[in-house]
């Protein structure tokens, strides 16, 4: 055929290879055909040969190392749940998917085979469902995923979940020669099992790595962090990359008695002094009894005058953001690096007493910011709790309208004991016709689910009331809490939540927003109810 094509490309005018046709499988037939031109003969030979080739096609041999799927270990879920999942996999309600999958796993049921490709595609798109998906795939799903590159994450997820997974024998080799993500993965594993070895690896290669990889390596130090890491981390404060230095500061602040903390403590001790409340005066005693207030001590604050080179280095970034004075910023950053428990010990005062003393102070907000950051870094529950008690006081709320959401507040929320969160929200939610009280919205995600019935009831009542407020606003942050409530309300309140809702707003736009959100809330709640009722665990 190749020679026929060659001939046809050149054109029969330019070549004279008539003998060629006779060599072809059907050429002889063609040359016997009378009254044809060479061109026609070529065409007939090509057409005839093509048909000859098609009709006599042989089976090719294709090698493949293919194995059939192993037997599944669990029974499939019910057809009803399969239908619901089919619908969920084509939507974006990841939380419902996670709920259904976790109940399936607990009930010892798997996804039916026909849903597997959809489920795997969903997991490819939404990382959050991967862990929950894994057990419900069973053998068939794992087998299927191995055949598609884009479903490789299944094996990675499985390996990451497998806490008994041992460090591979060739770990060091992988660390030396692997892809960046493989190197980080192996480093994290070694860090957990043998932090000294992991640190030695990092130290050996530190200077030759790029800044973003240095940062990734540094992040692995978060696990098994100890005073052993202090010298190395302290040295990285001289790193060229600011992101690396920032990460080092965070890690060092978390190591009790790190050199950085000691340096910062020494500096901070010069800036902060505390005078306990006077116990003696009769007048003060009378005043306290009248106002029922605990005695308040006095804080004396000295702003740093000048930073020496070392102090500058320890602060990473000595330039303040807009609106904050340079010296106040230095104070805040310095305090952030000192574990707050230090002050309780140093001044022999409770966190609440110190916060109370700071609250009336000229530099009070700077002190509170610094302490809040320090409490976050040190994961100090006592301080977190004291700070939140203070922030949720009506007197504070009234005076701090603009400060409903702040990074300091939200960062501390995860340290609060759940019961305390619930108590605060419960105390504030009824007042919530005033915007400044919405500070509880920082906390609601922290209340464990399912909510208890009493709190759920309280939330529903407050929300129904809120939906009928006549306001001219275009946006109501409260609406967003429905997304949390729909997964948190206890089953005993489902019927209550599904009762008709009244929405009444001056703004048409906001009315629509509320109505859409409630429609979505009810439809999601119905699906959640179906999942809870039809996958018994």
């Amino acid at each position, binding site marked *: 055929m190749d020679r026929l094509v060659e001939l046809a490309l050149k054109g029969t005018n330019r070549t004279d290879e008539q003998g060629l046709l006779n060599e072809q499988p059907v050429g002889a037939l063609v040359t016997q055909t009378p009254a044809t031109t060479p061109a026609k003969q070529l065409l007939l030979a090509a*057409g005839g040969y093509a048909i000859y080739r098609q009709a006599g096609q042989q089976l090719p041999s294709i090698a493949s190392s293919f194995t059939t799927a192993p037997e599944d270990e669990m029974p499939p879920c019910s057809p009803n749940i399969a239908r619901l999942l089919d619908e969920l996999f084509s939507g974006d309600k990841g939380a419902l998917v996670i709920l259904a999958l976790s109940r399936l796993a607990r009930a010892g049921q798997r996804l039916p085979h026909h849903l597997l490709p959809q489920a795997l595609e969903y997991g490819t798109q939404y990382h959050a469902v991967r862990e929950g998906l894994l057990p419900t795939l069973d053998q068939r799903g794992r087998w299927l995923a191995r055949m598609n590159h884009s479903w490789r994450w299944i094996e990675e997820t499985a390996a990451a979940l497998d806490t008994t997974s041992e460090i591979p024998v060739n770990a060091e080799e992988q660390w030396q020669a692997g892809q960046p993500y493989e190197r980080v993965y192996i480093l994290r594993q070694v860090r957990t099992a043998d932090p000294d070895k992991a640190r030695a690896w990092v130290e050996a290669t530190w200077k030759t790595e790029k800044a973003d990889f240095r940062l990734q390596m540094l992040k692995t130090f978060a696990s098994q962090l100890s005073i052993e890491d202090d010298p190395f981390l302290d040295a990285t404060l001289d790193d060229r990359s600011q992101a690396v230095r920032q990460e080092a500061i965070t890690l060092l602040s978390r190591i009790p008695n790190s050199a950085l903390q000691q340096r910062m403590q020494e500096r901070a001790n010069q800036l902060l002094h505390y005078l306990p409340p006077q116990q003696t005066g009769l007048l003060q005693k009378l005043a306290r009894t009248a106002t029922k207030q605990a005695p308040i001590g006095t804080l004396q604050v000295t702003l740093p005058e000048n930073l020496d080179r070392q102090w500058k280095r320890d602060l990473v970034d000595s330039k303040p953001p807009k609106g904050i004075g340079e010296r106040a910023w230095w104070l805040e950053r310095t305090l952030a690096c000192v574990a707050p428990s230090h002050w309780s010990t140093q001044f022999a005062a409770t966190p609440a007493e110190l916060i109370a003393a700071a609250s009336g102070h000229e530099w009070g907000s700077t002190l509170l910011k610094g302490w809040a950051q320090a409490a976050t870094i040190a994961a100090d529950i006592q301080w977190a709790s004291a700070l939140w008690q203070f922030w949720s006081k009506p007197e504070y709320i009234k005076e701090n309208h603009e400060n409903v959401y702040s990074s300091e507040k939200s960062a501390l929320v995860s340290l609060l004991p759940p019961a305390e969160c619930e108590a605060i929200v419960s105390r504030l939610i009824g007042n919530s016709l005033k915007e400044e009280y919405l500070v509880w919205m920082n906390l609601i995600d922290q209340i464990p689910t399912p909510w208890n019935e009493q709190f759920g009831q309280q939330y529903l009542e407050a929300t129904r009331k809120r939906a009928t407020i006549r306001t001219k606003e275009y946006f109501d942050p409260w609406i967003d809490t429905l997304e949390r409530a729909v997964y948190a309300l206890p089953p005993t309140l489902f019927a209550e939540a599904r009762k008709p809702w009244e929405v009444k707003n001056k703004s048409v736009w906001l009315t629509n927003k509320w109505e859409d959100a409630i429609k979505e809330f009810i439809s999601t709640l119905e699906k959640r109810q179906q999942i809870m009722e039809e996958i018994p665990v």
Partner: protein
Amino acid sequence: MELTADQVMALAPDSSSAAAGKKLAKPKDWQGLGRDSAAIWGEFQGSARYQVRAALSDLTVKCSCPSRKFPCKHGIGLLLIAATDFSAVPEATTPDWVTDWLQRREATAERREAKAHASVEGTAVTPDQAKRAAATTKRRLKRVEVGIEGIDLWLDDIVRGGLAQVSTQANSFWENQAARLTDAQAPGLANRVRQMADIPNASDNWPEQLLVEMGEVSLLTHAFRRIDELDPLLQEDLRSAIGWTLTQEEVMARGEKVRDQWRVIGRKLTLEDRLRAEWTWLHGATTGRYALLLQFAHGAAAFAPTLPPGRMIDADLVFWPSAYPQRALLGQQYGEARAFPELAGGDHSLAAMLDRNTEAMSRLPWLAQIPAILNDMSLIIADDRSWLIRDSTGATLRIRNGDHWQIMALAGGYPGDYVVEWDNQQLTLVGAFVHKKFYPVSRSDE
């Protein structure tokens, strides 16, 4: 009712209708869902209130919405509800708007049948009519001969000058020749010339593809000059390849009628030059014969309803006269369509399928594709991530790319029954029969 969601999804004209239909398949969003022995119905509140009804015999849908898709998303939604939970569509008194439609359908069917009947019975042709017909045929033959003369010279020219020089030709080069063939009443050849226009430079081996295509056209014209020497049935094939179409009445009158339990084993949509075609492959459970129902529609026009894949109907098929009859018309139907319980009677090895192809091509050399049921074979993936079918002897053939993950998940690599189309190069997967259920591969080349 043995209707499955996959069968319904296979009816969807495209993936967006399928997805939209899925969304609508919630009984609580519907009013007045009901059924009787012949139909299901319900009303859906969309931008207006739509009346949706479907006949149970062939799943034809009629909806009052303005969509030009067929079936529309409301129809798919209604059928899906019935497929997933038949009790959601309770028995009820048939509303007038359903009865009316059923009656109209019946009347149309009767008319169509009467017409077919009339032509089969052959209402006596008067000598005058016969004479006129003969004169028409003769006139057409003359024009086709002129057209064939023209294309032969044209091809001769190209090959004498060399294929290399056509690679730079404008589309009009091909289009003019195609138009001449259309004028000469040889639309079949005209189409092949139009398709040639896309070949140059489209792939590495385009010269070979073009030469083969031109060679096959030459074989057709060569054969046509000596058509009288051919077997009478092959003459029919040749005429149809040139572009002589038979009317349905002619097929009914002259074609072979075969009654069987016909299983609907696949369906695809293709688009060529704004002409859309719907292909439905059938297989006779008793005769073992394959058949193709082919219908065309222009632009956005809807196809007449056809049976959904996965179902089987006792019916007459009337085959186009051919040396290797495949294309057929659906004639009289006896009873209701139902899901087929098994898919036996196919090829048990890939070699057997290729042998069957060889045999078919020896009868009709320009046969473009054959369907095949493959029993006891596995769908697998090769190391280079391409899809394969493997038979029990270990022989494999490649499957054209597509999304076959669901069938893979269902079959687990174990042997099962598959439906494919073999086009002399690759297999195209048309459907799979797994765990006693038929899963059509929805395909649309549109």
